[in-house]
């Protein structure tokens, strides 16, 4: 059964919520009482539950199977963390309650901050960024504020070719000119080329380490030293921190700022696209410029530093990035994750993540080209290219074929430095049996792509939808529902009962 839209089954006059009668009163709405109908449909509770239950079943999810998206780190989301986030003392408190009435919540923020600083070997952490890209922005703004404080106007940020798209976008959003750093044939930052470009116009270098080719940057400290030597700062994209957590501290490598995607390393659920949370750890040089608000331990009590009392604590703060104090619901989950794993568990996370990725790399390199496979072990993700595919067969075809094998595809066409890139990150929460099953599926579709099996071009066949026309969607955008008479695009819909 196809699931119709709520607009096709609901009505403005139906509701799934009952209310007490409103007491009589004289309206004081400034003369702006709503008169026109909005056209927002309602459903009874039974219909609502069924609609969203059915919709959900058209999704792939970690709870259904391995989710090998490189750089996205789709690992198991512990249900304990969901339970904790819903405790009334965290879920049902207002961000502007008097601080005495939210000491436990401030304690969660401070405890998580403590572990993030400890794990990264940095000086402080800004907790309020709402997601990874927001954290990047926070880090770049700290750098800009620090340079402003020095009275320097450095216009350029250097970003490797292989960086996440958010890196150049963030630097540009903050007003910087973005220049690329080339990669070596081994998939790493070209240190010589970098050094050659460094100078007084360079505000910062943004590096991802482990990088997006799945490799650790062994020259990271040398890079940092070179950047610092010309007065610039080192921003590290922390998306891949889970590969080294408990084993390497970015602070020891000279990093000045790094965001941590709590949904990656610390497994808060991704929720179909968010919410994220992107705390940014900062070096001593950048710590004074961190944004508001902040939690401090002050004797026996936790205290929130906001605009009103910032002077004493953070005179150089660059300001506020968001209303309120950040993603509390993600903080509880991440702290629960850290406590559950502990020292031994976190180290094991990094080890198993890397072990699983290398196992996939070595189990597939005879059937798929691994451009940096010869460089040595990978970190937590294995990178392949489309070299050797039959004429006209692409990474996209292989990915769609994988859907029919029961899997979500890997990250495709990223990093850009590898042709038809396939970036596979199994994560540490997959069992060997699950990996073996996935490897077998990969070998099957790789065989099809290399043999030029025409059936692959039509895949997926067994998903809720066949390949979707993305060009049509962009050329004639239909972004909101309209009555069928108006929106011709809805004409395909068959009314229920047509069975």
């Amino acid at each position: 059964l196809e699931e119709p839209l709520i607009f096709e089954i609901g009505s403005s006059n139906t509701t799934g919520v009952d209310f007490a009668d409103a007491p009589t009163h004289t309206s004081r709405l400034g003369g702006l009482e709503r008169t026109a109908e909005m056209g927002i449909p309602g459903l009874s509770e039974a219909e609502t539950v069924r609609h969203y239950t059915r919709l959900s079943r058209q999704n792939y999810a970690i709870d259904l199977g391995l989710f090998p998206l490189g750089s996205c780190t789709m690992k198991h989301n512990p249900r304990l963390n969901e339970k904790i986030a819903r405790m009334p003392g965290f879920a049902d408190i207002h961000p502007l309650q008097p601080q005495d009435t939210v000491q436990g919540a401030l304690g969660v923020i401070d405890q998580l901050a403590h572990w993030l600083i400890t794990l990264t070997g940095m000086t402080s952490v800004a907790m309020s960024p709402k997601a990874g890209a927001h954290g990047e922005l926070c880090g770049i703004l700290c750098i800009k504020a620090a340079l402003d404080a020095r009275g320097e106007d450095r216009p350029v940020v250097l970003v490797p070719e292989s960086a996440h798209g958010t890196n150049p976008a963030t630097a540009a959003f903050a007003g910087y000119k973005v220049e690329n750093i080339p990669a070596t044939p081994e998939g790493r930052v070209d240190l010589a080329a970098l050094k050659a470009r460094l100078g007084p116009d360079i505000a910062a270098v943004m590096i991802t380490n482990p990088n997006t080719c799945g490799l650790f940057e062994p020259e990271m400290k040398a890079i940092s030293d070179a950047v610092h030597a010309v007065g610039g700062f080192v921003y590290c994209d922390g998306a891949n921190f889970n590969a080294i957590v408990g084993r390497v501290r970015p602070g020891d490598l000279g990093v000045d700022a790094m965001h941590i995607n709590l949904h990656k390393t610390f497994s808060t659920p991704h929720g179909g696209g968010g919410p994220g949370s992107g705390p940014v750890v900062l070096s001593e040089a950048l710590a004074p410029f961190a944004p508001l608000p902040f939690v401090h331990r002050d004797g026996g009590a936790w205290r929130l530093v906001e605009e009103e009392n910032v002077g004493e604590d953070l005179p150089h703060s660059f300001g506020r990035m968001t209303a309120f104090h950040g993603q509390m619901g993600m903080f509880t989950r991440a702290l629960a994750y850290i406590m559950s794993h502990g020292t031994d568990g976190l180290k094991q996370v990094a080890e198993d993540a890397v072990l699983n990725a290398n196992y996939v790399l070595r189990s597939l390199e005879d059937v798929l080209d691994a451009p940096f496979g010869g460089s040595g072990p990978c970190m937590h993700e294995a990178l392949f290219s489309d070299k050797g595919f039959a004429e006209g067969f692409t990474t996209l075809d292989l990915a769609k074929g994988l859907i029919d094998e029961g899997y979500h595809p890997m990250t495709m066409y990223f990093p850009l430095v590898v042709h038809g890139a396939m970036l596979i990150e199994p994560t540490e929460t997959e069992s060997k049996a699950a990996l073996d099953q996935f490897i077998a599926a990969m070998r099957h579709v790789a065989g099809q792509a290399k043999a030029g099996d025409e059936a692959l071009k039509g895949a997926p066949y067994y998903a809720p939808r066949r390949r979707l026309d993305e060009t049509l969607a962009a050329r004639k955008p239909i972004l909101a529902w309209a009555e069928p008479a108006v929106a011709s695009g809805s004409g395909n819909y068959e009314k229920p009962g047509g069975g």
Partner: protein
Amino acid sequence: MRYLPLTPDDRSEMLAKIGAASIDDLFIDVPEAARLTGPIRDLPDHASELSVERHFKSLSAQNTVAGDVPFFLGAGAYRHHVPASVDHLIQRGEFLTAYTPYQPEIAQGTLQMLFEFQSQVARLFGCDVANASMYDGSTACWEAVSMAARVTKKRKAILSSGLHPHYVSVTRTMAKFTRDQIVHRDPTLAAATDIDDLIDAVDDETSCVVVQYPDILGRIGDLSKLAKAVHAKGALLVAVVTEPVALGAITSPGEMGADIVVGEGQSIGVGLQFGGPYVGLFACQAKFVRQMPGRLCGETVDATGKRGFVLTLSTREQHIRREKATSNICTNSGLCALAFSIHMTLLGERGLRELAALNHALACQAADRLAQLPGVELINDSFFNEFTLRLPKEARPVVQALAERDVLGGVSLGRLYADNADLQNGLIVAVTETTTAEDIEALASALKEALA
């Protein structure tokens, strides 16, 4: 470790397949000096679920839970009753543990939901289109200012004095770096909004006027004239809605001519959560769609002609455009958008109107009751579910005194405008369908004591 399935035997077999003698061989790229040995400082080994749960239960118990006491806080975050089915549905693994729907064939659940969400938000705000959600209202507000600059190619934004001070802060912070010009002053404790002032202030350099509706003090102003004045200068009108439930009772900004309407969706489906995660709403009129930030879901067909949904117009986005993107945003607030959309589906227009009517009626009761207290003055002549009182003394310690009596009595303007002496006696009081007559009496009597 309960979350890690590899057994020691598995690990040995896998190392053998890889051809590595030990796990350390896989970390050879890490320079010796940077390798950590020994335990993580102060961090004990793994803990049982039971002990972790106990730790948090104890921290949770140190907070005063809104639902346990008479509660009147608003100012950008509102406590509404969320039907149990909302949380039940968002916890379905297929929603909770899915990724961004980049593979649409196996993500139609999230995609259709986003299409429905966009449609709901557009209708609620009186706009043509909405995006698939943003971090929160405050960041959506800055994105609107930034978009208005792209559309108008001008860099001066005029912010209403009624705009939430956190939203002002965020905008100022960002503008400081982008070198946009921001015009803003603090509100005054008057019955009228500053709409007439804004009409006077808009000029040819203005990219946009940003006005909150209802505003930070709870006042409701007609935006129609403002929209005309703004458009006359070639600028855009950006409206900010921090309490979307209000639109069940009053005309939406889009219907009054706003070009971009952004808002905080937390009120519907999401809950208080100490400030996050929330869900930013972003809608605009159709002609601006290609300048919108954030993710968009659109309708299309599959290879067999069946209707389906995909993320679209992604040439605006960072993963395609990199440094030329409309925004650096990657993540949205998908799960909160889902909660919003489910709650909105349960309500429907009829339920939203009933909910809004109940909120307003109770707020009227509360306002009348509190205004009877000696020395207490109701500032507003218009409001929805939130209004501002002028107390006979500084509000901040009064709020503290109320908390000591187990009444969470509102948000003092001193908390929001620490440096503005004229505002220190102001108290914002919010009332929703969760407020009882007993709660109102409890506040009235505690406030009377605190002011005595």
